[in-house]
């Protein structure tokens, strides 16, 4: 049994141990307290939760874009990135780029790209590969994306060890598209109902906007659930994915666009996960496997 399996099995067994039924005493005590405890009545007004703020922001951004396009007569450039018929690209305003003076370069040798980020951010290199095989269960025992993040004030360094890093958070990874999978099919998995990240929040490929990623035409999709924005770039048979999380600001904003503009991809330097060992197990063979021979 390899170490990963041993760890996961031990973790599960460890968590299985212990009670699964609540004792009566704390429940009785709580219910007794509740008999004499009033509820905290609200005054009928509250700020919506971040989960709902972001769609409002998205709607506002879309409204601003429509005003800009209709009122000024400006036609936003759209780029066909070679994925068949040109989709009806959502018009989004191009944010004013931020000043990147003093930013530092992050180099991902694993995934073959560089990106610049504010110098007060903390960066963590991926420790494992992101694959279509493990993406629904990623980060189980290893970090499968590079992650860069700042703290809330965005003005002082943060560390992952002390968990002071929060958001904005920028992640990046890449993979070789499996043989037979088109770029559109790859984009579509993000908006599928069973997508592991923000299911049913990511717009379908034909609703994704064009964006320049390091001077190359890619796609960007702001999650309708408001927490993240995803950007995709296809170079040869390699797909690059960049993700921005931000609960304070609209994630597909100036910061994300500026960082994307600093991306340089080097697909020839990217590493691929080791070839999967042939397995006779029906459960294992049922999962899709990335084909390293799809160059």
């Amino acid at each position: 049994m390899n170490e990963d399996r041993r760890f996961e099995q031990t973790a599960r067994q460890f968590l299985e141990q212990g009670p699964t039924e609540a004792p009566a005493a704390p429940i009785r005590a709580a219910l007794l307290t509740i008999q004499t405890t009033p509820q905290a009545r609200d005054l009928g007004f509250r700020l919506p939760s971040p989960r709902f703020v972001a769609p409002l922001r998205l709607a506002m951004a879309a409204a601003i874009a429509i005003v800009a396009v209709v009122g000024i007569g400006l036609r936003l450039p759209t780029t066909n990135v070679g994925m068949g018929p040109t989709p009806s690209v959502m018009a989004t305003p191009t944010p004013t780029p931020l000043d990147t003076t003093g930013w530092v370069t992050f180099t991902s040798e694993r995934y073959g790209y560089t990106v610049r980020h504010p110098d007060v951010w903390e960066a963590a290199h991926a420790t494992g590969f992101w694959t279509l095989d493990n993406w629904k269960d990623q980060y189980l025992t290893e970090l499968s994306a590079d992650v860069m993040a700042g703290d809330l004030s965005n003005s002082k360094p943060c560390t992952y060890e002390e968990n002071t890093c929060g958001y904005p958070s920028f992640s990046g990874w890449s993979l070789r598209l499996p043989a037979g999978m088109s770029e559109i099919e790859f984009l579509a998995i993000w908006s599928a109902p069973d997508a592991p990240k923000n299911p049913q929040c990511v717009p379908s490929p034909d609703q994704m906007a064009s964006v320049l990623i390091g001077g190359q035409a890619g796609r960007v999709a702001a999650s309708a659930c408001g927490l993240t924005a995803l950007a995709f770039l296809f170079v040869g048979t390699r797909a690059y994915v960049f993700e921005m999380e931000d609960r304070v600001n609209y994630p597909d904003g100036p910061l994300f666009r500026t960082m994307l503009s600093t991306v340089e991809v080097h697909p020839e330097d990217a590493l691929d996960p080791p070839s999967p060992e042939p397995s006779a197990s029906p459960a294992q063979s049922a999962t899709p496997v990335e084909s390293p021979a799809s160059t």
Partner: protein
Amino acid sequence: MRGPWPENVQRTVTERAIDVFPGRLNVSLAARLIVNARASQAQRYTGVVVDRELVERARRGDRDAFTTLVSQISDRLYSVAYRILRDADLAQDALQNALVTNWQQLPDLRDTDRFEAWSQRILVHACYAESRRRGRWTATVRVIPFTPSTPDASDALADRDEMERAFRRISPDHRAVFVLHHYLGLPLVEVAETLGIPAGTARSRLHNASRVLRSAIEADAVATIEEVRLA
């Protein structure tokens, strides 16, 4: 309310069945194990079916409705509290405080479908408060004497003991992410939403917790090999 059983959980149980019979998987037996595991774990992974009308009534101050809700969610909340705190007394106190807070703040809950996740968030914060109040994170470390014996059974036991010791060394917020993800089977996005933290933070906490726990087990494995060599 959570939907059907997540795919990662399905896979987890399948792998467990395979682990029982490494290299010679008996499909029908594995299927039976999966069915049994489903029966016992389905509620944990899918959550309890909370009546939305009950939540609405409790929101409006109906204590009887809240009492019924408490009976539906308490087992799950206590299970999580125990696994985060690793102490029955602390877990009971956390559960009691969480239920009272739940009642007090229920009018603030707008989306009644989120009741269970909302309750879990309150519980986790109650666990944090318990841990701070008692200050027993390091004091409760149990020193277990290591006795080398037959490798198979004792290896797993030693691993779990090492896991226990290492788990007590990590912070409550790391524990919470680890338990919600590995015990309840919540995807990281839901863990993050439940705890009210960014997904990136949940991810890094899970990564760091896993790293600490894994190191503890690997260190123990090395020590065991050394013991065998010396014997």
